């Protein structure tokens, strides 16, 4: 049975543990290796789970500060909407 940790990128618990074993013991390095938190949810689903796995396997407590920065626009917005000036005219 597979335990999916990151739904956006299809990453399993096993993938995370394997990466930790390979030496990716920093949350940001794990993120860049596995692309967790880079999909549409931006880590809302996966990051806390990954942090827990990382704490369990390294025995190190992670501080809240290590949570990756959320990136604007937070929810997906179409390029057409962003390129439009309409909302400016309405004020």
């Amino acid at each position, binding site marked *: 049975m597979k335990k999916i940790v990151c739904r956006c990128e299809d990453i399993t618990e096993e993938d995370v543990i394997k990466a930790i074993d390979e*030496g*990716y013991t*920093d949350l*940001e*390095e794990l993120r*860049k*290796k596995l*692309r967790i938190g*880079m*999909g*549409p949810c*931006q880590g809302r689903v996966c990051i806390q789970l990954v942090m827990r796995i990382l704490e369990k396997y390294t025995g190190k407590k992670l501080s809240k500060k290590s949570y990756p*920065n959320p*990136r*604007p*626009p937070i929810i*997906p*917005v*179409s*390029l*057409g909407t*962003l*390129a439009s000036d309409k909302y400016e005219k309405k004020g």
Partner: protein
Amino acid sequence: MKKKADVVVIGGGVNGCAITYNLAKKGMDVALIEKNYLSSGATGCCGAGIRQQWSTKENVELAIKSVKIFEKLSNELGQDIELRQGGYLIIIHNKKDMEQAKENVKMQKSLGLNVDILQSNKLLDIVPILDINGMKAIGATFCPTDGHANPFKTTFAYAKAAKSFGASIYTHTKVTGIQTENNSIKEVITDNGKIKTNIVVNAAGVWSNQIAGMVGINLPNKPYRKEIMATERYKPIFDSMVISFRDGIYFSQQKEGQIVGGIPIPEEISGYYTMPTISFLKHMSKTLTSYAPCLKHVNLLRHWTGFYDVTPDARPILGKVEKINGFIQCNGFSGHGFMLCPMVTKILTDYIADNKSTQILEKLNLERFKGKKFDKEVYVVG
């Protein structure tokens, strides 16, 4: 932490990790110090592009040789760096740019690069979603061996291979001082211990100036915030990077399917700013949808900032400095550190390990800024 090393490399970006690998492979005892995690600076925010089409000879030469190394790098390091050679399409908008392009293509060809000028009706063969009128294109230059690789995976692969040759890598460790004696490097002091060494490589990106300041050297590098965005994933549509020097835009589709690109904002100023701006989102989405109108239906997911470590001539600062023996520069890449890394770190390694200097190293040292005239690289985007 170890007590001494042949070389201490400061900075765990792609250049710091690559030079650590190259030196360790030559049998030198190397320690790398990184204040955050590996690839936490400019490398981790970079656009992943690899380009050989430049306006200055040194950059073309470094880039051609870097691509040759990139092509074999996955094998050499034992990890996939996800190299894809889909080319770079540089849009030409007017006659004046066409004249400059012709001159540059001639120079690039003389150095052995496979590059050509395309008429506007050929552009859609390479990137089918482009709008020739929307971007006001009269042609383009195209080099099919330009491309992309994964900057994180390249950095991690270099670091891992460096460790296998005995290098020590200390992350989350900050350099707080550098001890010198009779104008020579003696010791690197960190918040986690001291390492005796005679050679320091300053590969600290936009923080290189602070490192140089520790030994009383002033670098002309300035940090610039650069913004970049990624969309949702789509099926593969195009392989080539598209760039324009007039608009400063670059965009491409990555391996996973997302479109990644950037553009400078009009009100850009130098400084350690990290906040993303609404101005970028507007400017980028407007320009991008004028280049490829079908992308207006595509969702933008994330947008983030990174730094360009910019020198007065937009070319890197490499090699020794006059005032301090053993203080080697590997910084000032001005937005091109990833793509030039394999060859730059190789020639620096030849210099450090075997005392072999090259013409490029002589031309790109810090002292070039003493003269009033220097060749400026004008082919810069983002």
